[in-house]
């Protein structure tokens, strides 16, 4: 007779394997770590996951992750409402914020156009973006989607959509590695990229 892990441990390992970037070996290591850690730490982690899930939602204006709706950035009166930076994911927004260069507002698309994944403009927050622009306060839209083919397609799409409406559309791309993901770009390159944005 061969013995395997107890059922509950196997379940834990399986759940961990579902996480991005975690293979079976890492999942096993993490599971044993969680079993060996203090009760307080383990419960703390479980609670943190649940609390983060319950408290955060998408801002009804910009679709960023927030605990309060509208989010602090949307409510910030010191930010220039004439500048709107469009990003793919909340993490891109936070990467941009870290540069401290940008003083306008944001719009989070929650993805990029990708036919192979069945993602078109309808799957993104493009409609809310359009109604935001209809208010007429935005003078320039800065498209900061990732510098890969999907991000580029999204930028081109937005530019073709918004330009006829008389809105200036710029794209930050300068200095970004081709095919690289924005979140991995260090802050200095991103700050430079923002300065060197071009009209599309």
């Amino acid at each position, binding site marked *: 007779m061969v013995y395997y892990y107890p059922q509950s441990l196997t379940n834990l390992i399986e759940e961990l394997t579902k996480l991005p970037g975690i*293979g079976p070996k890492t999942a096993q290591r993490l599971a044993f770590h969680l079993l060996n850690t203090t009760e307080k730490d383990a419960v703390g982690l479980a609670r943190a996951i649940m609390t983060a899930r319950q408290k955060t939602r998408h801002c009804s204006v910009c679709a960023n992750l927030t605990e309060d709706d509208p989010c602090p950035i949307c409510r910030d009166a010191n930010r220039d409402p004439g500048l709107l930076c469009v990003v793919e994911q909340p993490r891109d927004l936070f990467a941009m914020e870290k540069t401290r260069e940008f003083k306008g507002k944001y719009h989070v698309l929650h993805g990029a*156009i*990708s*036919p*192979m994944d*069945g993602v*078109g*403009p309808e799957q993104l927050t493009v409609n809310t973006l359009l109604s935001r622009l209809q208010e007429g306060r935005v003078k320039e839209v800065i498209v900061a989607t990732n510098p*890969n*083919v*999907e991000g*580029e*397609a999204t930028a*081109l*799409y937005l530019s*073709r959509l918004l330009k006829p409406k008389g809105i200036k559309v710029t794209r930050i791309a300068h200095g970004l590695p*081709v*095919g690289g993901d924005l979140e991995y770009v260090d802050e200095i390159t991103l700050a430079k990229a923002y300065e060197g944005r071009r009209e599309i």
Partner: protein
Amino acid sequence: MLFSSLVLRNFRNYTSLQIEWSPGVNLICGLNAQGKSNLLEAVSYLSTGSSFRSGKDEELIRWDQQFFYIQGTVLRQIGDYNLSVGYTREGRKVAKVNGNQRKKLSEFIGILNTVIFSPEDLDIVKTSPARRRKYLDGEMVQLFPSYLHLLWQYQKIVFQRNNLLKELNGKKNKESLLGVWNEQLVDTGSRIIKKRMEVLKKLGPLARLMHRKITGGLEELEIVYEGLERDEVLKAADLNSLKEIFLERIEKAREEELKRGVTLIGPHRDDFRLMINNNDVKKFGSQGQQRTTALSLKLAELELMKAETSEYPVLLLDDVMSELDESRREHLLQVIGHKVQTFITTTDADYNYSGNQLKLKISQGRIINASR
């Protein structure tokens, strides 16, 4: 450029190996299936970051092992480089230059340049456009590592665009999205075509010269790029006019593309034609002419790399000596002279090249004899 030493662990049928190479000709002898080509494969892997025989890195790991490791030293005019690649069965690949990890393949390729010539290279002349594209792109990546980004990007665009074409079939209203992908396809695709034409413009005359020498001036070899079906415009084209033509063609092909759900125009469909005295070698060339053409191409490559990098690459000759007739072999040796470091595999134990400085005998993944 000199490839001065090689270390292998668990690569193909080698458990462990370390060799100091000769700067001249390295003769690798042995019976069939002993590991001669595997050695050339390892050298070439350090040059391109992939195998010239297998698309799967996993096949290169010794059957009973979990990883392979290749390390080599390259001496160049601009300095010495230590290259290494490790690959595990889990699919983790770590490439290093002088001990520093390189995350991008394009930062690893191009330090060791190689030209490999094997009997399968006859396929370049004889078989499909896909084979010729693979050959040309492979050479170009060695010369211009950033070309790899263009190729990857283009591949991704075609893949995405094909998905969209399939989705659009029958739905007229969403065609505006296609324009976005057309723009990217045309932009990246035109850059690829332009780069290929630039390279062929240099490779062509060199190949013609080589071919003339081998045939005693009887045959004129010409390489003609075939893309977008408008060669007269292509010849003079700058990037912008290329883009215009490309866009025009893609607009014309729209209906057909929508019907078939695939991208029909672009560098992923292009080809180059090899002509001897104005006749297509693929269709009308004799076996001998096709062989000579392959050889001329390879020798031209050698000269092109020399011209672009100011150093001769390392030449890898896998089983070709016995395949070539006396006069072609003679010519090859003459080109190699004393200026190109060369690795020759052969099953002929008696084969001797006058200037060879290292002769290895290989048996079952081991060096059983080395004479200098």
